[in-house]
């Protein structure tokens, strides 16, 4: 098993958001503050790892035709657990993420990894893959949050860094989500193409 290679794939060469361009909705919608991004990232990381392990464990007994439905039920089960846990222990984050927690069910990253990785690989490899892809996703979320919260609201995790009259308010609005993510993906494409040369 090469943990290093999978980690590099998850973080850089096959990053779920910046390279595979999956899971866009949550990436843009909730990245307005670092705490939101962290909550969302960790939730996805846990659900992705757990569902990867379960799907890889049951991959031999699931008939090919109904596999997508099976994946969705497994994922929905874990999402419900995480949703209830968040509501019980960190109600503030659950409140601000709102409808986007149940919507993790339809986050293409999780279904995508189930279909393209854990359905074909062993349990240990799927576990590692879940963690690596989850970290890749979380890091992109945090990068987006950092840019949008710092430049858009002038704060970082609630602490004021830039005086109130200077921040570019538009970055915290939906427009900012599209623009910042567009620029991040462009930067990634630039970096990857430079690497190849």
């Amino acid at each position, binding site marked *: 098993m090469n943990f290093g290679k999978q980690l590099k794939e998850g973080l850089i060469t096959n990053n779920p958001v910046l390279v595979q*361009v*999956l899971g*866009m*909705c*949550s990436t*843009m*919608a909730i990245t307005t503050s670092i705490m939101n991004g962290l909550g969302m990232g960790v939730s996805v990381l846990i659900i992705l790892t757990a569902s990867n392990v379960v799907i890889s464990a049951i991959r031999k007994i699931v008939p090919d035709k109904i596999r*997508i*439905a099976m994946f*969705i*039920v497994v994922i*929905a*089960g874990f*999402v*419900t657990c995480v*949703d*209830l846990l968040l509501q019980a222990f960190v109600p503030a984050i659950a409140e601000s993420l*709102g*409808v986007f927690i*149940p*919507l993790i*069910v*339809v*986050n*293409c990253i999780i*279904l995508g990894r189930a279909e393209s990785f854990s359905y074909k690989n062993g349990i240990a490899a799927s576990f590692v893959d879940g963690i690596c892809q989850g970290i890749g996703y979380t890091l992109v979320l945090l990068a987006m949050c950092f840019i949008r919260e710092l430049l858009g609201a002038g704060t970082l995790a609630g602490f004021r860094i830039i005086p109130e009259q200077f921040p570019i308010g*538009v970055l915290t*609005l*939906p*427009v*900012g*989500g*599209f*623009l910042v*993510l*567009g*620029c991040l*993906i*462009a*930067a990634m*494409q*630039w970096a990857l*193409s430079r690497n190849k040369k």
Partner: protein
Amino acid sequence: MDQIYELLAITLGAILANNFIFSQFLGICPFLGVSKKVDTAVGMGMAVTFVMGLASAITWLVNTFILIPFDLGYMQTVAFILVIASLVQFIEMFLQKSMPSLYTALGVYLPLITTNCAVLGVALLNIQNNYNFISSVVYGITGGLGFLLAIVLFASIRERLVFADYPKSFEGFPIALVTAGLMALAFMGFSGLKIW
């Protein structure tokens, strides 16, 4: 009369002011994936509108008559996604038989409606906003129409992007996202729109 005002408010909100794509970030994946040509964008938009309307109706009924009486609120996510998945499967078979040309045009994107967050999103938002049956269905359909409007406008801009001169690293998704961002900026103008 109140009901009519409410429906009007929902309609305007779902299509313009609170457009699913530009202000709520629901359904971005198909929005970016199927918007390379106007024809397929129209087909996708209509399919989504149809599924959203039907899904709103069915999930509302499931929630009111099955989940609430039996105190199964925590099963909402699981129940809704199953309803939506089977609904999409049904529509796929229906289209395959009756409209093969539209079926081949939509191709792989039809099953993907299952994982379109706008569909599950509208079902959850209906419950969250405490809408009654009629409002839910109207919200579903108009939300879909908002999606249709957004994706068709976006596709027609993207067709012209071929002639644009932009940095090489922006090719593909980045330039599409920047375009969508500018469109979101334009749609923000509608947020002043309020009716009482």
